[in-house]
Protein backbone atom coordinates (compact mmCIF):
# COMPACT_ATOMS: atom_id res chain seq x y z
CA UNK A 1 0.00 0.00 0.00
CA UNK A 2 3.03 2.32 0.21
CA UNK A 3 4.33 1.79 -3.33
CA UNK A 4 5.05 4.97 -5.25
CA UNK A 5 6.33 5.70 -8.70
CA UNK A 6 8.42 8.81 -9.20
CA UNK A 7 9.74 9.79 -12.63
CA UNK A 8 9.31 6.21 -13.79
CA UNK A 9 11.12 4.66 -10.84
CA UNK A 10 9.15 2.33 -8.62
CA UNK A 11 9.77 2.40 -4.88
CA UNK A 12 8.35 -0.18 -2.46
CA UNK A 13 7.71 2.77 -0.15
CA UNK A 14 8.28 6.52 -0.49
CA UNK A 15 11.11 6.74 2.08
CA UNK A 16 14.53 7.17 0.52
CA UNK A 17 17.92 7.52 2.19
CA UNK A 18 19.10 11.12 1.57
CA UNK A 19 22.45 11.85 -0.04
CA UNK A 20 25.50 12.12 2.16
CA UNK A 21 24.10 10.24 5.10
CA UNK A 22 25.78 6.84 5.26
CA UNK A 23 25.79 6.64 1.45
CA UNK A 24 29.56 6.27 1.11
CA UNK A 25 29.50 2.52 0.57
CA UNK A 26 27.24 -0.18 -0.80
CA UNK A 27 27.12 -1.86 2.58
CA UNK A 28 25.62 1.09 4.41
CA UNK A 29 23.07 1.68 1.66
CA UNK A 30 22.09 -1.98 1.67
CA UNK A 31 21.61 -1.77 5.41
CA UNK A 32 19.31 1.25 4.98
CA UNK A 33 17.15 -0.85 2.65
CA UNK A 34 17.26 -3.69 5.16
CA UNK A 35 15.90 -1.26 7.74
CA UNK A 36 13.04 -0.30 5.48
CA UNK A 37 14.17 2.36 3.01
CA UNK A 38 12.32 2.21 -0.30
CA UNK A 39 15.40 3.43 -2.13
CA UNK A 40 18.73 5.15 -1.59
CA UNK A 41 20.64 8.14 -2.86
CA UNK A 42 24.42 7.81 -2.78
CA UNK A 43 26.85 10.29 -1.29
CA UNK A 44 27.50 13.01 -3.89
CA UNK A 45 30.18 11.75 -6.25
CA UNK A 46 32.53 13.82 -8.38
CA UNK A 47 35.10 13.03 -11.03
CA UNK A 48 38.04 12.79 -8.68
CA UNK A 49 38.53 11.62 -5.08
CA UNK A 50 38.12 14.39 -2.51
CA UNK A 51 38.93 14.26 1.18
CA UNK A 52 36.42 16.93 2.08
CA UNK A 53 36.77 19.73 4.60
CA UNK A 54 39.00 19.52 7.66
CA UNK A 55 37.42 18.30 10.89
CA UNK A 56 35.36 19.16 12.91
CA UNK A 57 32.84 18.58 10.16
CA UNK A 58 29.70 18.25 12.24
CA UNK A 59 28.17 20.05 15.20
CA UNK A 60 25.16 18.52 16.87
CA UNK A 61 22.44 20.87 18.11
CA UNK A 62 19.36 20.03 20.16
CA UNK A 63 17.16 20.44 17.08
CA UNK A 64 19.44 19.55 14.21
CA UNK A 65 22.93 19.30 12.86
CA UNK A 66 25.37 21.56 11.10
CA UNK A 67 27.71 19.73 8.78
CA UNK A 68 30.58 20.75 6.59
CA UNK A 69 31.70 17.44 5.16
CA UNK A 70 32.80 19.16 1.97
CA UNK A 71 31.70 16.45 -0.42
CA UNK A 72 34.33 13.81 0.41
CA UNK A 73 34.05 10.98 -2.07
CA UNK A 74 36.29 8.38 -3.68
CA UNK A 75 35.68 9.63 -7.22
CA UNK A 76 33.34 8.08 -9.75
CA UNK A 77 35.70 5.42 -11.08
CA UNK A 78 36.13 3.83 -7.68
CA UNK A 79 32.48 4.39 -6.71
CA UNK A 80 31.26 2.40 -9.72
CA UNK A 81 32.09 -0.69 -7.67
CA UNK A 82 29.80 0.33 -4.85
CA UNK A 83 26.87 0.78 -7.18
CA UNK A 84 27.58 -2.60 -8.71
CA UNK A 85 27.74 -4.22 -5.30
CA UNK A 86 24.50 -2.56 -4.25
CA UNK A 87 22.70 -3.77 -7.32
CA UNK A 88 23.96 -7.29 -6.84
CA UNK A 89 22.46 -7.36 -3.37
CA UNK A 90 19.40 -5.18 -3.51
CA UNK A 91 16.36 -4.56 -5.71
CA UNK A 92 15.52 -1.10 -4.40
CA UNK A 93 16.38 1.76 -6.74
CA UNK A 94 19.74 3.41 -6.22
CA UNK A 95 20.05 7.03 -7.27
CA UNK A 96 23.55 8.35 -7.84
CA UNK A 97 24.04 11.83 -6.46
CA UNK A 98 26.49 13.56 -8.76
CA UNK A 99 28.20 16.93 -8.84
CA UNK A 100 30.83 18.85 -10.71
CA UNK A 101 32.05 22.29 -11.55
CA UNK A 102 30.71 22.36 -15.08
CA UNK A 103 28.37 20.42 -17.35
CA UNK A 104 31.05 18.19 -18.84
CA UNK A 105 32.34 17.12 -15.44
CA UNK A 106 28.88 16.20 -14.24
CA UNK A 107 28.21 14.35 -17.48
CA UNK A 108 31.40 12.35 -17.03
CA UNK A 109 30.36 11.29 -13.54
CA UNK A 110 26.88 10.33 -14.75
CA UNK A 111 28.28 8.30 -17.56
CA UNK A 112 30.71 6.48 -15.31
CA UNK A 113 27.92 5.68 -12.86
CA UNK A 114 25.39 4.74 -15.54
CA UNK A 115 24.54 1.50 -13.69
CA UNK A 116 22.56 3.59 -11.21
CA UNK A 117 18.78 3.59 -11.58
CA UNK A 118 18.63 7.35 -11.58
CA UNK A 119 20.63 10.49 -10.95
CA UNK A 120 20.31 13.34 -8.51
CA UNK A 121 22.33 16.35 -9.57
CA UNK A 122 23.60 18.19 -6.52
CA UNK A 123 23.75 21.90 -7.30
CA UNK A 124 23.01 22.91 -3.75
CA UNK A 125 25.58 21.94 -1.15
CA UNK A 126 25.95 25.29 0.64
CA UNK A 127 29.48 24.84 1.95
CA UNK A 128 31.30 23.52 -1.09
CA UNK A 129 32.80 26.00 -3.52
CA UNK A 130 31.95 23.73 -6.40
CA UNK A 131 28.20 23.62 -5.83
CA UNK A 132 27.68 26.86 -3.89
CA UNK A 133 28.19 29.00 -6.94
CA UNK A 134 25.73 26.94 -8.97
CA UNK A 135 22.79 27.11 -6.59
CA UNK A 136 21.06 30.08 -8.18
CA UNK A 137 22.64 30.00 -11.61
CA UNK A 138 19.63 29.00 -13.70
CA UNK A 139 21.53 28.91 -16.94
CA UNK A 140 24.32 26.71 -15.68
CA UNK A 141 21.86 24.38 -13.99
CA UNK A 142 19.96 24.12 -17.26
CA UNK A 143 23.18 23.30 -19.13
CA UNK A 144 24.16 20.63 -16.63
CA UNK A 145 20.74 18.99 -16.79
CA UNK A 146 20.78 18.94 -20.59
CA UNK A 147 24.27 17.41 -20.67
CA UNK A 148 23.36 14.71 -18.18
CA UNK A 149 20.08 13.95 -19.93
CA UNK A 150 22.02 13.43 -23.16
CA UNK A 151 24.46 11.10 -21.43
CA UNK A 152 22.08 8.76 -19.63
CA UNK A 153 18.72 7.13 -20.16
CA UNK A 154 17.56 6.89 -16.58
CA UNK A 155 15.64 9.66 -14.81
CA UNK A 156 17.47 12.79 -13.72
CA UNK A 157 16.53 14.67 -10.58
CA UNK A 158 17.91 18.04 -9.52
CA UNK A 159 18.50 18.77 -5.85
CA UNK A 160 17.66 22.37 -5.03
CA UNK A 161 19.05 24.82 -2.52
CA UNK A 162 16.86 26.75 -0.10
CA UNK A 163 19.54 29.44 0.07
CA UNK A 164 18.20 31.30 -2.94
CA UNK A 165 15.78 34.15 -3.51
CA UNK A 166 13.36 31.97 -5.42
CA UNK A 167 13.55 28.21 -5.32
CA UNK A 168 10.64 28.11 -7.75
CA UNK A 169 12.61 29.82 -10.49
CA UNK A 170 15.50 27.42 -10.04
CA UNK A 171 13.04 24.54 -10.11
CA UNK A 172 11.49 25.89 -13.30
CA UNK A 173 14.90 26.15 -14.93
CA UNK A 174 15.55 22.51 -14.10
CA UNK A 175 12.16 21.47 -15.42
CA UNK A 176 12.61 23.38 -18.65
CA UNK A 177 16.00 21.78 -19.19
CA UNK A 178 14.35 18.37 -18.98
CA UNK A 179 14.77 17.31 -15.36
CA UNK A 180 12.42 14.47 -14.42
CA UNK A 181 11.98 15.62 -10.82
CA UNK A 182 13.34 18.09 -8.30
CA UNK A 183 14.51 17.31 -4.79
CA UNK A 184 13.97 19.96 -2.12
CA UNK A 185 15.82 20.88 0.02
CA UNK A 186 19.53 20.73 0.68
CA UNK A 187 20.83 22.21 3.95
CA UNK A 188 20.54 25.85 5.07
CA UNK A 189 23.81 27.76 4.98
CA UNK A 190 24.76 28.16 8.62
CA UNK A 191 27.57 28.64 11.12
CA UNK A 192 28.43 28.25 14.77
CA UNK A 193 31.16 29.90 16.83
CA UNK A 194 32.57 28.62 20.11
CA UNK A 195 32.18 31.40 22.66
CA UNK A 196 34.99 30.23 24.91
CA UNK A 197 37.64 30.54 22.21
CA UNK A 198 35.93 32.79 19.69
CA UNK A 199 36.67 30.27 16.96
CA UNK A 200 34.18 29.04 14.34
CA UNK A 201 33.82 25.37 15.21
CA UNK A 202 33.58 23.75 11.79
CA UNK A 203 36.84 23.22 9.99
CA UNK A 204 35.29 24.97 7.00
CA UNK A 205 33.72 27.64 9.24
CA UNK A 206 30.53 27.58 7.19
CA UNK A 207 28.29 24.55 7.00
CA UNK A 208 24.76 23.42 6.31
CA UNK A 209 21.92 23.09 8.80
CA UNK A 210 19.75 19.97 8.64
CA UNK A 211 17.37 18.13 10.93
CA UNK A 212 14.00 18.85 12.42
CA UNK A 213 14.55 22.60 12.68
CA UNK A 214 14.60 23.01 8.89
CA UNK A 215 11.38 21.14 8.23
CA UNK A 216 9.20 24.27 8.18
CA UNK A 217 11.47 25.73 5.49
CA UNK A 218 11.44 22.49 3.52
CA UNK A 219 7.65 22.25 3.67
CA UNK A 220 7.34 25.83 2.44
CA UNK A 221 9.73 25.15 -0.47
CA UNK A 222 7.85 22.00 -1.48
CA UNK A 223 4.53 23.82 -1.24
CA UNK A 224 5.77 26.66 -3.44
CA UNK A 225 7.31 24.31 -5.99
CA UNK A 226 4.12 22.27 -6.22
CA UNK A 227 2.13 25.38 -7.08
CA UNK A 228 4.18 25.94 -10.21
CA UNK A 229 6.08 22.87 -11.33
CA UNK A 230 4.71 19.98 -13.35
CA UNK A 231 7.43 17.45 -12.58
CA UNK A 232 7.33 15.57 -9.28
CA UNK A 233 8.99 16.84 -6.13
CA UNK A 234 10.95 14.69 -3.72
CA UNK A 235 10.77 16.24 -0.25
CA UNK A 236 13.70 16.30 2.15
CA UNK A 237 14.63 18.24 5.26
CA UNK A 238 14.00 17.41 8.88
CA UNK A 239 11.76 14.39 8.54
CA UNK A 240 11.93 12.46 11.80
CA UNK A 241 8.43 10.96 12.12
CA UNK A 242 5.56 9.71 10.01
CA UNK A 243 3.80 13.00 10.67
CA UNK A 244 6.64 14.88 9.04
CA UNK A 245 6.51 12.57 6.04
CA UNK A 246 2.75 13.02 5.70
CA UNK A 247 3.10 16.79 6.06
CA UNK A 248 5.62 16.92 3.23
CA UNK A 249 3.46 14.78 0.99
CA UNK A 250 0.46 17.01 1.72
CA UNK A 251 2.65 19.95 0.70
CA UNK A 252 3.37 18.26 -2.61
CA UNK A 253 6.13 15.69 -2.24
CA UNK A 254 5.77 12.43 -4.19
CA UNK A 255 8.47 10.78 -2.11
CA UNK A 256 10.55 11.64 0.94
CA UNK A 257 14.25 11.54 1.63
CA UNK A 258 15.54 11.12 5.16
CA UNK A 259 19.01 12.15 6.26
CA UNK A 260 19.85 13.43 9.72
CA UNK A 261 17.21 11.33 11.48
CA UNK A 262 19.06 8.19 10.39
CA UNK A 263 21.91 9.20 12.65
CA UNK A 264 20.00 8.52 15.85
CA UNK A 265 18.11 5.53 14.53
CA UNK A 266 18.69 3.52 11.34
CA UNK A 267 15.35 1.83 11.98
CA UNK A 268 13.60 5.13 11.33
CA UNK A 269 12.43 3.87 7.93
CA UNK A 270 10.49 0.96 9.46
CA UNK A 271 8.98 3.22 12.09
CA UNK A 272 7.80 5.81 9.60
CA UNK A 273 6.42 3.12 7.31
CA UNK A 274 4.30 1.77 10.13
CA UNK A 275 2.97 5.23 10.96
CA UNK A 276 2.24 5.98 7.32
CA UNK A 277 0.27 2.77 6.91
CA UNK A 278 -1.79 3.43 9.98
CA UNK A 279 -2.53 6.97 8.81
CA UNK A 280 -3.61 5.87 5.35
CA UNK A 281 -5.83 3.19 6.81
CA UNK A 282 -7.44 5.54 9.30
CA UNK A 283 -8.02 8.21 6.68
CA UNK A 284 -8.98 5.66 4.04
CA UNK A 285 -6.66 7.24 1.51
CA UNK A 286 -4.32 5.88 -1.12
CA UNK A 287 -0.76 7.11 -0.82
CA UNK A 288 -0.87 9.05 -4.05
CA UNK A 289 -3.91 10.92 -2.79
CA UNK A 290 -1.74 12.55 -0.14
CA UNK A 291 0.47 14.30 -2.66
CA UNK A 292 -0.33 18.00 -2.75
CA UNK A 293 -3.55 17.60 -0.78
CA UNK A 294 -2.92 20.79 1.21
CA UNK A 295 -3.34 22.76 -2.01
CA UNK A 296 -6.94 21.66 -2.42
CA UNK A 297 -8.23 23.52 0.61
Amino acid sequence: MLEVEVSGLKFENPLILASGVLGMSASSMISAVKFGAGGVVTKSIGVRAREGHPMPCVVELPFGLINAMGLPNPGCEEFKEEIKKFKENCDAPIIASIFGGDPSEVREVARTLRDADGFEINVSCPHSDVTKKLEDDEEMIGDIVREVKKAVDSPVWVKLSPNVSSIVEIGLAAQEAGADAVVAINTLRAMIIDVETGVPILGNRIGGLSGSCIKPVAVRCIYELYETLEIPIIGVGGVTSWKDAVEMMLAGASAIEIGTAVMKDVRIFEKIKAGLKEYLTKKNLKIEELVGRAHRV
Partner: protein
Amino acid sequence: MLPRMVEIKEIIEEGRDAKTFILDAPWLKGATPGQFLMVWIPEIGERPMSLSSSTSITVKRVGRVTSRLHDMKEGDFIGIRGPYGRGFEISDGKSLLIAGGMGSAPLAFLSERVNKFTALIGARTKDDLVLLRKFSKGELLIATEDGSEGRKGFVTDLIDEIEMKVYDAIYACGPDGMLREILDRAKELNILHKLQISVERYFKCGIGVCGSCVLDPSGVRVCKEGPIFRGEEVFDSEIGRYRRDASGRRVKYGNSKRI
Protein backbone atom coordinates in the same frame (compact mmCIF):
# COMPACT_ATOMS: atom_id res chain seq x y z
CA MET B 1 26.36 17.99 21.78
CA LEU B 2 28.66 20.96 21.17
CA PRO B 3 32.37 20.58 21.80
CA ARG B 4 32.97 21.63 25.38
CA MET B 5 36.23 23.28 26.35
CA VAL B 6 38.02 21.48 29.17
CA GLU B 7 41.27 22.13 30.97
CA ILE B 8 44.20 19.76 30.73
CA LYS B 9 44.85 19.13 34.41
CA GLU B 10 47.89 16.96 34.08
CA ILE B 11 50.11 15.53 31.37
CA ILE B 12 51.98 12.24 31.85
CA GLU B 13 54.74 11.24 29.46
CA GLU B 14 54.31 7.68 28.25
CA GLY B 15 57.47 6.30 26.72
CA ARG B 16 58.80 8.04 23.65
CA ASP B 17 55.91 9.36 21.57
CA ALA B 18 52.85 9.17 23.75
CA LYS B 19 51.30 11.29 26.47
CA THR B 20 48.36 10.90 28.78
CA PHE B 21 46.20 14.00 29.18
CA ILE B 22 44.09 14.12 32.31
CA LEU B 23 41.08 16.32 31.70
CA ASP B 24 39.00 18.42 34.03
CA ALA B 25 35.74 16.88 32.86
CA PRO B 26 33.96 15.32 35.81
CA TRP B 27 30.84 14.64 33.72
CA LEU B 28 32.78 11.89 31.91
CA LYS B 29 32.70 9.77 35.08
CA GLY B 30 29.81 7.73 33.66
CA ALA B 31 31.73 6.70 30.54
CA THR B 32 32.27 3.02 29.74
CA PRO B 33 35.69 1.63 28.77
CA GLY B 34 35.82 1.41 24.99
CA GLN B 35 33.98 4.69 24.44
CA PHE B 36 35.77 7.52 22.74
CA LEU B 37 35.89 11.31 22.63
CA MET B 38 36.10 13.62 19.66
CA VAL B 39 38.97 15.89 20.66
CA TRP B 40 39.10 19.38 19.17
CA ILE B 41 42.03 21.74 19.11
CA PRO B 42 40.57 25.03 17.88
CA GLU B 43 41.96 26.15 14.53
CA ILE B 44 43.89 22.86 14.23
CA GLY B 45 41.47 19.99 13.95
CA GLU B 46 39.45 17.28 15.61
CA ARG B 47 40.32 13.60 16.09
CA PRO B 48 38.79 10.53 17.77
CA MET B 49 40.52 9.27 20.92
CA SER B 50 39.62 6.40 23.19
CA LEU B 51 39.27 7.11 26.88
CA SER B 52 42.26 5.62 28.72
CA SER B 53 40.45 6.20 32.01
CA SER B 54 37.19 7.93 32.74
CA THR B 55 38.88 11.33 32.49
CA SER B 56 41.94 10.86 30.34
CA ILE B 57 43.14 10.14 26.85
CA THR B 58 46.50 8.71 25.88
CA VAL B 59 47.73 9.95 22.58
CA LYS B 60 50.53 9.00 20.25
CA ARG B 61 52.15 11.74 18.21
CA VAL B 62 51.55 10.75 14.60
CA GLY B 63 50.54 13.82 12.60
CA ARG B 64 49.24 17.37 12.63
CA VAL B 65 46.63 17.27 15.35
CA THR B 66 48.34 14.83 17.70
CA SER B 67 51.60 16.78 17.40
CA ARG B 68 49.84 19.96 18.33
CA LEU B 69 48.24 18.21 21.26
CA HIS B 70 51.66 17.04 22.38
CA ASP B 71 52.85 20.64 22.37
CA MET B 72 50.13 21.70 24.80
CA LYS B 73 50.75 22.30 28.47
CA GLU B 74 48.92 21.68 31.68
CA GLY B 75 46.33 24.43 32.10
CA ASP B 76 45.66 24.63 28.36
CA PHE B 77 42.17 23.96 27.05
CA ILE B 78 40.90 21.54 24.44
CA GLY B 79 37.37 20.88 23.22
CA ILE B 80 35.76 17.51 23.64
CA ARG B 81 32.49 15.94 22.64
CA GLY B 82 31.39 12.53 23.80
CA PRO B 83 31.70 10.02 25.32
CA TYR B 84 30.41 8.36 22.17
CA GLY B 85 29.92 4.84 20.93
CA ARG B 86 29.25 1.47 22.50
CA GLY B 87 31.78 0.45 25.15
CA PHE B 88 32.91 -2.97 26.31
CA GLU B 89 30.51 -5.27 28.06
CA ILE B 90 32.22 -5.97 31.35
CA SER B 91 32.67 -9.59 32.37
CA ASP B 92 32.60 -10.85 35.96
CA GLY B 93 34.90 -13.74 35.21
CA LYS B 94 38.46 -14.12 34.06
CA SER B 95 39.42 -11.70 31.30
CA LEU B 96 42.11 -11.71 28.70
CA LEU B 97 43.22 -8.28 27.48
CA ILE B 98 45.25 -8.07 24.27
CA ALA B 99 46.66 -4.71 23.20
CA GLY B 100 48.88 -3.75 20.32
CA GLY B 101 50.50 -0.30 20.33
CA MET B 102 48.07 2.44 21.32
CA GLY B 103 45.45 -0.27 21.73
CA SER B 104 46.55 -0.18 25.36
CA ALA B 105 44.55 3.01 25.87
CA PRO B 106 40.98 1.63 25.99
CA LEU B 107 42.18 -1.58 27.65
CA ALA B 108 43.89 0.41 30.39
CA PHE B 109 40.51 1.92 31.18
CA LEU B 110 38.92 -1.53 30.97
CA SER B 111 41.49 -2.96 33.38
CA GLU B 112 39.99 -0.75 36.11
CA ARG B 113 36.67 -2.52 35.76
CA VAL B 114 37.46 -6.21 35.30
CA ASN B 115 38.22 -8.50 38.24
CA LYS B 116 40.86 -11.01 37.27
CA PHE B 117 42.76 -10.55 34.07
CA THR B 118 45.76 -11.47 32.04
CA ALA B 119 47.11 -8.71 29.81
CA LEU B 120 49.12 -9.34 26.67
CA ILE B 121 50.73 -6.09 25.64
CA GLY B 122 52.77 -5.59 22.50
CA ALA B 123 54.59 -2.74 20.82
CA ARG B 124 57.30 -2.11 18.27
CA THR B 125 59.90 -1.36 20.89
CA LYS B 126 60.27 -0.83 24.66
CA ASP B 127 59.75 2.93 24.34
CA ASP B 128 56.40 2.40 22.65
CA LEU B 129 54.94 0.47 25.55
CA VAL B 130 52.40 2.74 27.21
CA LEU B 131 50.27 2.57 30.33
CA LEU B 132 51.91 -0.66 31.54
CA ARG B 133 51.35 0.50 35.14
CA LYS B 134 47.63 0.11 34.64
CA PHE B 135 47.95 -3.58 33.93
CA SER B 136 50.08 -4.47 36.95
CA LYS B 137 47.21 -5.61 39.14
CA GLY B 138 46.73 -8.54 36.76
CA GLU B 139 49.05 -10.99 35.09
CA LEU B 140 51.12 -9.09 32.51
CA LEU B 141 52.97 -10.49 29.45
CA ILE B 142 54.88 -8.25 27.11
CA ALA B 143 56.16 -8.59 23.58
CA THR B 144 58.21 -6.15 21.48
CA GLU B 145 59.06 -6.53 17.84
CA ASP B 146 62.72 -5.76 18.47
CA GLY B 147 62.88 -7.75 21.69
CA SER B 148 63.85 -4.69 23.74
CA GLU B 149 61.38 -5.77 26.39
CA GLY B 150 59.54 -9.05 27.03
CA ARG B 151 59.30 -11.63 24.37
CA LYS B 152 60.62 -10.73 20.92
CA GLY B 153 57.80 -10.81 18.40
CA PHE B 154 54.20 -9.77 17.99
CA VAL B 155 51.64 -9.56 20.74
CA THR B 156 49.73 -12.33 19.04
CA ASP B 157 52.71 -14.62 19.63
CA LEU B 158 52.02 -14.25 23.36
CA ILE B 159 48.75 -16.03 22.85
CA ASP B 160 50.69 -19.25 22.54
CA GLU B 161 51.91 -18.76 26.10
CA ILE B 162 48.44 -18.82 27.57
CA GLU B 163 45.27 -20.83 27.07
CA MET B 164 42.73 -18.61 25.35
CA LYS B 165 39.85 -20.97 26.00
CA VAL B 166 39.98 -20.67 29.76
CA TYR B 167 38.99 -17.00 29.75
CA ASP B 168 35.40 -15.89 30.14
CA ALA B 169 35.98 -12.81 28.05
CA ILE B 170 38.62 -11.69 25.62
CA TYR B 171 39.16 -8.01 24.85
CA ALA B 172 41.42 -6.79 22.08
CA CYS B 173 42.49 -3.49 20.61
CA GLY B 174 45.22 -2.81 18.13
CA PRO B 175 46.05 -2.71 14.45
CA ASP B 176 43.74 -4.42 11.98
CA GLY B 177 46.20 -7.23 11.29
CA MET B 178 46.38 -8.13 14.95
CA LEU B 179 42.60 -8.05 15.24
CA ARG B 180 42.23 -10.31 12.22
CA GLU B 181 44.62 -12.83 13.67
CA ILE B 182 42.74 -12.85 16.96
CA LEU B 183 39.41 -13.19 15.13
CA ASP B 184 40.79 -16.20 13.27
CA ARG B 185 42.13 -17.84 16.41
CA ALA B 186 38.89 -17.26 18.29
CA LYS B 187 36.94 -18.69 15.40
CA GLU B 188 39.11 -21.79 15.42
CA LEU B 189 38.47 -22.27 19.12
CA ASN B 190 34.79 -21.54 18.66
CA ILE B 191 34.91 -18.65 21.14
CA LEU B 192 34.08 -15.73 18.85
CA HIS B 193 31.19 -14.88 21.17
CA LYS B 194 33.64 -14.35 24.05
CA LEU B 195 35.67 -11.87 22.03
CA GLN B 196 35.14 -8.12 22.03
CA ILE B 197 37.36 -5.97 19.86
CA SER B 198 37.78 -2.23 19.56
CA VAL B 199 37.84 -1.18 15.93
CA GLU B 200 39.41 1.91 14.40
CA ARG B 201 38.28 3.43 11.17
CA TYR B 202 38.44 6.92 9.67
CA PHE B 203 36.01 8.92 11.80
CA LYS B 204 34.69 12.20 10.51
CA CYS B 205 31.49 12.85 12.43
CA GLY B 206 31.78 10.36 15.27
CA ILE B 207 28.00 10.29 15.65
CA GLY B 208 26.79 7.99 12.92
CA VAL B 209 25.77 10.37 10.18
CA CYS B 210 28.54 10.62 7.60
CA GLY B 211 29.16 6.99 6.77
CA SER B 212 32.91 7.38 6.74
CA CYS B 213 33.56 4.63 9.33
CA VAL B 214 31.15 1.99 8.04
CA LEU B 215 32.37 -1.64 7.86
CA ASP B 216 31.76 -3.90 4.89
CA PRO B 217 29.72 -5.95 4.36
CA SER B 218 27.27 -5.46 7.25
CA GLY B 219 27.15 -1.70 6.95
CA VAL B 220 27.53 -1.11 10.70
CA ARG B 221 28.90 2.23 11.82
CA VAL B 222 32.04 1.82 13.91
CA CYS B 223 31.43 5.14 15.66
CA LYS B 224 27.85 4.30 16.62
CA GLU B 225 27.20 0.55 16.70
CA GLY B 226 30.90 0.21 17.73
CA PRO B 227 33.72 0.88 18.27
CA ILE B 228 33.40 -2.27 20.37
CA PHE B 229 32.12 -5.29 18.49
CA ARG B 230 31.61 -8.93 19.40
CA GLY B 231 33.75 -11.33 17.45
CA GLU B 232 30.83 -12.89 15.61
CA GLU B 233 29.56 -9.46 14.52
CA VAL B 234 32.72 -8.66 12.58
CA PHE B 235 34.36 -11.96 11.77
CA ASP B 236 33.17 -11.70 8.17
CA SER B 237 34.09 -8.05 7.89
CA GLU B 238 36.72 -6.12 6.01
CA ILE B 239 38.89 -5.97 9.13
CA GLY B 240 42.44 -6.92 8.28
CA ARG B 241 41.66 -6.87 4.56
CA TYR B 242 41.06 -3.24 3.77
CA ARG B 243 39.83 0.01 5.21
CA ARG B 244 38.69 3.35 3.74
CA ASP B 245 40.62 6.58 3.74
CA ALA B 246 39.29 10.11 4.25
CA SER B 247 37.80 10.21 0.75
CA GLY B 248 36.17 6.79 1.08
CA ARG B 249 38.63 4.99 -1.16
CA ARG B 250 39.43 1.44 -0.17
CA VAL B 251 43.01 0.96 0.98
CA LYS B 252 44.32 -2.60 1.19
CA TYR B 253 45.66 -3.58 4.57
CA GLY B 254 49.41 -3.21 4.61
CA ASN B 255 49.39 -0.08 2.49
CA SER B 256 47.86 1.94 5.31
CA LYS B 257 49.73 3.12 8.34
CA ARG B 258 48.38 1.98 11.66
CA ILE B 259 46.00 4.50 13.03
